[in-house]
């Protein structure tokens, strides 16, 4: 016997603020999801890429003769062959800017000089993936190895080899973020703390890797399904590189099995597969396998920071200065938003008198870098919070006090910081009550009683610690996102948006926002996203932006649709608009049973030839909005955790994890919690598990899930989430994003707790991730490897 469930179990009404079960779920739960590899077109061919085994080499001769003889192989292409259908071989820069040099993006297929292990230089297309991979193994490539740069700290040394021969310098970009009188701040400091810190390379690893299916039907129209976070950008680049009219290119993001940043890019493989489809006049599919993800999907987080903080007698932060080195990898496919975010994000929720950071963005012979979940903010929070903990010890002031002293107070919000964003406008912390959240969490985790617990544990030979940290995340990045709300003559309510779903419940959230205005059930709202056919413009899912941007557009559009419906209904029902209400898909005269369905109103607005439309309105019960924004809505997180450290093995156990989250008005608290669970887990990965290792030949050596560790269920405590809502004054819904927020303060929180557990050893952890080996080094050898 089963439960016949057509609707979700009822919790609360499906409107804004409700913990509404998601509209996405039933299909996914029954295995009826449609991910890119689930799409099966007749006559499809399958691609496999030949990837460089060298970190840096010149391609000599490519001999595909044996491979071509394998039955089932349809074609093998290198850069030379693809050039016949490509306008150019080089990918356009993702975020166009004149601030970066030319010739820094990857090639669709590498023509001459491979610059990282994993770079694709040829593609095999065959009747099956098995055959394509068999053939790829038979292709003989001669290489002339070149010296390589395996570590970004090497990149700027005087005799460092060139990462790419075409690149005049290994330094891609150098910039400064600065304000205030920094020298003065340090000159008059009562206390100066210094630390050299680092975070390490890791990857996004959604459980569904990348994938693309390209179909040139009739050679005139290109349809591409891609597991992407940016369908409009992909359409634009396909059009540009294949010389096609954009109207003839349709990109569809089907169900996407997670993104976390790595699908927020147009990749060479997507263009190459489309080119193959054009050349072979058959659909071509490529599905990334996990080993490819390790060597060709973007990575992030490798940064080295040498920092100093100057504090006054009363623990006021007078200034922060230092240098940061950012590992960009071999190419720059998108821009340098990640180091920029990190550089401008350090001061976070705090007031800092002066700031001076020199940033060097350098190239290495490793996989290219763009943001992974957090996009530089986790690194920034890590640096700031570690400095504060150090200062707390040096000044003999409690960690909670030194933070309380310097947090931007609620009364001063919106607070204009002296740091400018990349458009040149100041960073404004729009709303929040950081101190209250700190107090709320510390109370919840019983920080006051912890000293006793810690002492009792020590009596038993156990080392426990409690740590905490703040983090803010700029969300809702503009300039806009599209939103269209439409009611069909049949009464179907639809939302179309350029925003994109990758598991975060976007459809449910937008359905709730729309349903709130139109008085229908969220389950009855059809949300179409990620398909370029339905909306002409869109930017996609990244930077925790879509609730703010798409949400606002949908909200405003729904309001307009509601207004129109009421206006038309008031004419037809001959009632004043004040006497009308919108409920359950009907406009009703309050207190009577006279009503008109939204479908009927839509039919009226569809028009009948020869008859006039209702006076004063335009055709169609629909409205499109591209709500614009130049500012970010800053979400705030304060995390605290208790850990136990095993001083003999270096093992760390998370005993308890409490997190406050302020993302303004919450559309669906259940979904927000889910985002936090995932974000925190990713942060725990960054703190204790995820290490993407490269050796001295820039060869990756952690290329399976046995070596590159993601947190599993047995390593995590139950997360306790506490909400605080400070609506943002900068958007009509008062919402803020949350997708990445959970990740931001985690490493700092955990390191703070471990330092506390090992306070007898007086350690101060500075490098993430922390492995048991490194921790045991701290305990036994003061951090120096024996």
């Amino acid at each position, binding site marked *: *016997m089963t439960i*016949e469930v057509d609707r979700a179990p009822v919790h609360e009404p499906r409107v804004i603020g409700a913990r509404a079960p998601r509209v996405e779920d039933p299909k996914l739960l029954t295995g009826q999801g449609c991910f890119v*590899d689930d799409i099966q077109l007749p006559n499809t061919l399958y691609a496999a890429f030949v990837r460089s085994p060298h970190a840096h080499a010149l391609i000599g001769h490519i001999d595909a003769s044996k491979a071509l003889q394998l039955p089932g192989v349809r074609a093998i292409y290198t850069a030379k062959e693809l050039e016949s259908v490509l306008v150019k071989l080089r990918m356009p820069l993702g975020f166009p800017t004149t601030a970066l040099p030319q010739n820094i993006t990857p090639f669709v297929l590498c023509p001459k000089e491979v610059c990282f292990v994993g770079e694709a230089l040829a593609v095999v297309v065959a009747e099956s993936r098995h055959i394509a991979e068999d053939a790829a193994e038979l292709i003989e490539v001669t290489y002339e190895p070149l010296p390589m740069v395996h570590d970004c700290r090497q990149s700027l040394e005087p005799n460092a080899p060139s990462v790419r021969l075409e690149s005049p310098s290994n330094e891609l970009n150098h910039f400064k973020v600065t304000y205030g009188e920094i020298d003065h701040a340090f000159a008059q400091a009562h206390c100066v703390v210094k630390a050299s810190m680092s975070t390490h390379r890791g990857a996004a690893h959604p*459980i*569904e890797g990348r994938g693309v299916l390209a179909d040139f039907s009739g050679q005139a129209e290109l349809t591409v399904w891609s597991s992407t976070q940016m369908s409009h950008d992909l359409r634009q680049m396909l059009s540009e590189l294949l010389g096609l009219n954009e109207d003839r290119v349709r990109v569809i993001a089907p169900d996407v099995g997670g993104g976390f940043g790595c699908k927020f890019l147009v990749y060479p493989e997507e263009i190459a597969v489309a080119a193959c489809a054009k050349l072979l006049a058959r659909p071509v599919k490529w599905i990334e396998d996990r080993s490819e993800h390790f060597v060709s999907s973007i990575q992030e987080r490798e940064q080295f920071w040498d920092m100093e903080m100057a504090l006054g007698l009363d623990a006021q932060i007078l200034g922060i200065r230092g240098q940061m080195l950012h590992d960009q990898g071999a190419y720059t496919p998108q821009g340098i938003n990640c180091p920029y975010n990190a550089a401008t994000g350090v001061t976070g929720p705090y007031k800092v008198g002066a700031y001076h950071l020199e940033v060097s963005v350098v190239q290495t012979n490793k996989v290219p870098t763009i943001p992974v979940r957090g996009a530089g903010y986790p690194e920034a929070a890590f640096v700031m919070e570690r400095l504060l903990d150090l200062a707390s010890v040096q000044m003999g002031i409690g960690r909670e006090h030194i933070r309380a002293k310097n947090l931007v107070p609620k009364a001063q919000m919106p607070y204009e910081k002296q740091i400018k964003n990349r458009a040149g406008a100041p960073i404004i912390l729009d709303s929040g009550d950081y101190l209250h959240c700190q107090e709320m969490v510390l109370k919840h985790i019983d920080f006051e009683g912890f000293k006793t617990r810690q002492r009792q544990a020590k009596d038993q030979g156990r080392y426990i610690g409690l740590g905490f940290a703040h983090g803010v995340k700029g969300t809702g990045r503009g300039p806009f996102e599209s939103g269209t709300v439409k009611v069909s003559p049949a009464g179907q309510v639809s939302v179309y948006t350029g925003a994109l779903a990758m*598991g975060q419940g976007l459809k449910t959230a937008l359905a709730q926002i729309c349903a709130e205005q139109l008085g229908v059930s969220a389950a009855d709202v059809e949300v179409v996203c990620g398909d370029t056919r339905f909306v002409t413009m869109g930017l996609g899912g990244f930077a925790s932006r879509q609730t703010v941007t798409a949400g606002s557009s949908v909200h405003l559009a729904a309001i307009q649709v509601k207004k129109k419906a009421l206006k038309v209904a008031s004419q037809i029902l001959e009632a004043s608009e004040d006497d009308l209400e919108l409920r359950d898909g009907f406009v009703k005269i309050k207190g009577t049973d006279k009503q008109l369905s939204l479908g009927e109103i839509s039919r009226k607005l569809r028009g009948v030839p020869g008859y006039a439309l209702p006076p004063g309105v335009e055709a169609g019960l629909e409205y499109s909005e591209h709500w614009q924004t130049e500012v970010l809505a800053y979400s705030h997180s304060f995390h605290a955790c208790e850990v136990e450290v095993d001083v003999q093995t270096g093992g760390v156990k998370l005993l308890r994890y409490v997190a406050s989250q302020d993302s303004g008005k919450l559309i669906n608290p259940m979904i927000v919690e889910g985002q936090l669970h995932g974000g925190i887990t990713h942060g725990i990965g960054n703190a204790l598990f995820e290490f993407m290792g490269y050796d001295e030949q820039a060869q990756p050596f952690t290329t399976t899930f046995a070596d590159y560790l993601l947190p599993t269920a047995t390593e995590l405590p139950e997360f306790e989430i506490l909400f605080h809502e400070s609506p943002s004054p900068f958007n009509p819904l008062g919402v803020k994003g949350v997708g990445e927020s959970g990740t931001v303060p985690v490493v700092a929180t955990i390191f703070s707790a471990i330092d506390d557990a090992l306070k007898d050893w007086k350690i101060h952890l500075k490098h993430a991730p922390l492995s048991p080996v490194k921790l045991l080094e701290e305990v036994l050898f003061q951090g120096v490897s024996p």
Partner: protein
Amino acid sequence: MNSSPLKTISFQLNGKTIQEEVQSRLNLADFLRQQCHLTGTHVGCEHGVCGACTVMVEGRAVRSCLMLAVQVDQKAVVTVEGISPASGLSVLQESFWAEHGLQCGFCTPGVLISLTQLLIDNSSPSPEEIRDVLSGHLCRCTGYQNIVKACMLAAKRLRETPDLAQSILIPQGHKLTVIEGHHDH
């Protein structure tokens, strides 16, 4: 490995007996997805760690990327499609829906299969026991938090509704023969 011999296999798939000709090199996950057109089972890593490909073979949850299609000859295989009712959701699926136990949904079918086996073996699992089973799955979205809650809720519902428990989450109409593990002789 260029030529891969073909073999005809006969097996039970979600309660139905079917015959298929398969290449001997074809793994079970690819076979189910491409030849049987059941795309609910997903491939995440191909090296037996992520668990996205988990299906039931002879009543036990296994990684289908680590089995060959030929190995299920004469066996009973159940995929996520086989633990889903003809319409609506099973108790376990409905609990996931209520507790927000999934986000992108890619790891979910495999997780449902593992938890189905758990609930067959243990009608009152503790959160620790659930996490132990989940440790064989990688999820990048949920942090596993709500998956544990969903499983606890499902177990509770099944205990409270004994006649539901008889079906052990396999909907009516599917005849699944669960072969017990070997006991001591």
